[in-house]
């Protein structure tokens, strides 16, 4: 029997995590026109921050000498399994700490990486960030304190102290949905504000925006701070969900998955980001769930994943080149002022 409830929970959790990524990419690339091909950098940074902080602090706070028993060591992993689920307060405290630190550090990284962007010009932005992601991955593969190629395992989870596994999964899903809702509200507000309007203006015509006094590089740095901060948060949620991180999880394909979501859903439309994330993660989950039942197959489901997503994009773009949902006008009180005038004029 296929575990339907389990499927839905795991799909919604992955959907929530990816939605945070697609919403933030939509802010950066859909709204502000920064071609961020390095989304995975900040996602990975967030995941590694959560993994590192949680494993090291769990050991240290329990009186373990991490110079002798580091968390990537076999003994460390065993200890983490024993200690991680003991103290609810510690688990939740580490969650909050990871979320805050990941937002700030990933955000700051995005802010700093905008500097070369200003130097190389818009066409190379994507590739600068893409290469940086690969550099980071190679660095992590060889950096011993975070486990090198093996990464970090047995990361204590925020709800590890909950005995019943189904309850634990639902609680975690609730957390992910809460963070997603917050992300949506924040980005929705940013887009529907004078700042959002300026971002779209910069995207449409940088030169004209510059002539209207807009400091284009600063604006892009700000956007990358926010977008990368949220990507970091998504990374935190991923690390706790999978309870392990390793460098090979953070390949460029992750970035392009998120791009597929915003292209499908519609660049510049936030609801579209949710729809895109739902569709792509659904395909992904179905394949993951079905694979074990297939036995030996001619084509690996992994390849099918890309074929299906690719086909979906082609079909959607043929029907509507702007994706499923079009960008909407910015909603500010200015609209009311105008509609009062228009209504009064005709009446």
């Amino acid at each position, binding site marked *: 029997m296929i575990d339907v409830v389990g499927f839905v929970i795991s799909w919604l959790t992955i959907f929530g995590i990816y939605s945070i990524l697609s919403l933030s990419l939509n802010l950066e690339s859909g709204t502000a026109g920064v071609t961020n091909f390095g989304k995975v950098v900040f996602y990975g940074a967030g995941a590694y921050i959560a993994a590192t902080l949680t494993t090291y602090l769990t050991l240290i706070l329990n009186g373990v000498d991490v110079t002798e028993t580091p968390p990537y060591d076999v003994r460390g992993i065993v200890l983490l399994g024993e200690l991680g689920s003991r103290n609810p307060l510690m688990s939740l405290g580490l969650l909050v700490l990871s979320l805050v630190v990941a937002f700030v550090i990933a955000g700051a990284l995005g802010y700093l990486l905008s500097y070369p962007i200003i130097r190389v010009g818009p066409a190379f932005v994507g590739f600068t960030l893409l290469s940086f992601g690969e550099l980071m991955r190679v660095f992590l593969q060889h950096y011993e304190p975070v486990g090198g190629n093996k990464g970090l395992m047995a990361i204590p989870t925020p709800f590890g102290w909950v005995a019943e596994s189904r309850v634990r999964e639902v609680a975690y899903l609730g957390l992910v949905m809460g963070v997603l809702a917050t992300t949506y509200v*924040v980005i929705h*507000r*940013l887009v529907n*504000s*004078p*700042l*959002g*309007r*300026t971002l*779209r*203006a910069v*995207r*449409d*015509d940088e*030169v*004209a*925006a*510059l*002539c*209207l*006094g*807009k*400091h*284009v590089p600063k604006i892009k740095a*700000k956007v990358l*701070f*926010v977008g990368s901060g949220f990507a970091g948060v998504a990374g935190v949620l991923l690390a706790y969900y999978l309870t392990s991180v390793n460098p090979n999880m953070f390949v460029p394909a992750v970035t392009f998955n998120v791009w597929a979501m915003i292209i499908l859903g519609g660049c*510049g439309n936030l609801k579209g980001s949710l729809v895109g994330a739902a569709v792509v993660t659904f395909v992904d989950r179905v394949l993951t769930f079905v694979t074990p039942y297939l036995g030996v197959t001619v084509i690996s489901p992994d390849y099918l994943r890309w074929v299906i997503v690719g086909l979906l994009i082609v079909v959607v773009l043929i029907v509507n080149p702007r994706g499923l949902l079009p*960008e909407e*006008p*910015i909603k*500010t*009180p*200015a*609209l*009311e*002022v*105008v509609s009062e*005038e*228009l209504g009064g*004029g005709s009446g």
Partner: protein
Amino acid sequence: MRAVLEVRDVAKYFGGVKALDGVSLEVPETGLVGLIGPNGSGKTTLFNVVTGFYVPDKGEVLLRESDDLVRIDGLNPNEVFKKGVVRTFQIPRLFNSLTVLENLLVTPLGQRGESLVRALLRGSWSGQERELARKAVELLKMFDMLHYANSKVSELSVAHIKMLETIRGLMTPAKLYLLDEPAAGVDYSTARKLFTYVRKLRDERGLTFLVIEHRLEILMEYVDYVYVLHNGKLLSEGKPQEVVSDPKVVEAYIGA
């Protein structure tokens, strides 16, 4: 009358092309000054030098700041805008996916809702936003464009696009407005309306304009002083009647 803008012996070369070759001119406070010349005479290049797009190869550009004239050549375009110089483009550069209203609302400086933190707090900027929207409505009404307020730029006619560029510039108070062929592609009566409004702004609010225009029959009726460029050099200057009867100007236009 004091000068708002003073261009002193400015030169700009593109390889062998002397787009500007030692040009000096002045725009007085509350002036409505025309800048004319045959195609390729350097008019747009002069705007580009004044607004920080190009650094001049020679000479200085000065802008009034209370009792002083300060150099603005070498500043970036966004800094020049902040000093109080607004320009429009010969080939319009609007924000094409934005509505007419949104295009106008991009212009004003110092919008509270443009800060990252304040953007999240609607209450902190919605009052200012309404105020700016009323200003936009007033300008749109003046140009008979209010019913296009919620249209996208991509749905507008060429004439409306051209007008919108001018209106967008007028959304912010500035020391000097540089208009690059505001009436190109605009029908005769609308063009006259546009110039009438520009003159009205000058008369009633004391704004200052430097206007490039090829349609001399309209321009000459409105401006109080004209500079004529030819091959990057100042060919003639004076009151409109003086300039049109200057044999050198007539020859340049016919020769070109």
